[in-house]
């Protein structure tokens, strides 16, 4: 089945220790997104790629970076995680064609910062 896969599902890191979360997709979608979701809140968009074109949200901290080496993979790097970065990180994909820009979500990576 075509899908969005995130690894790992659970990540524990120490305060200030860099961490990388990964996302892969078999949908061949042009657009990939990274969201941060905290408990009982809506997902907050961090950035998105349209192919290799990177789009950063204005309020995304510099501590968060992303890489998309090819269509299938996208990485979220948190350079110096703080306690406030503990959250669920969601990857999503969509196709920009027409108006049917439904986003397909992965299962998320739950990040714990000790």
């Amino acid at each position, binding site marked *: 089945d075509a899908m969005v896969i995130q690894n790992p599902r659970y990540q524990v890191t120490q305060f200030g220790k860099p961490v990388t979360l990964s996302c892969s997709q078999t949908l061949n979608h042009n*657009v990939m997104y990274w969201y941060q979701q905290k408990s*009982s*809140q*809506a*997902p907050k*968009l961090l950035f*998105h790629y*349209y192919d290799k074109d990177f789009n950063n949200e204005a309020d995304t901290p510099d501590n968060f970076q992303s890489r998309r080496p090819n269509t299938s993979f996208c990485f979220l790097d948190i350079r110096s995680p703080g306690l406030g970065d503990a959250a*669920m990180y*969601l990857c999503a994909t*969509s196709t*920009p064609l027409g*108006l*049917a*820009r*439904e*986003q397909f*979500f*992965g*299962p*998320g990576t739950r990040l714990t910062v000790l």
Partner: protein
Amino acid sequence: AQSVSQHNHHVILSEAASLELGCNYSYGGTVNLFWYVQYPGQHLQLLLKYFSGDPLVKGIKGFEAEFIKSKFSFNLRKPSVQWSDTAEYFCAVIQDSNYQLIWGAGTKLIIKP
């Protein structure tokens, strides 16, 4: 700025009660509309979506939603809820001019057995 409003942050119902969760958006152009559900400890799942055509859309698990363009609304309904419907429900909108989902704040639904 475009926005999506969900009127109730918390809803508590008894099993078999009818459900209606409100969602209004502020964008005047063409939109795609979505309801996502997040069960406790689980990831986001698409409940239903509206792109065009019949404004009454049916989703999974007996849910439906009606798009009323004149009211900028996309309310979610279910005639008889079950305990397993306990979850958080998010309304979201994509405008025709970009790729970003605009999210409502979510409604936490608790069904009492």
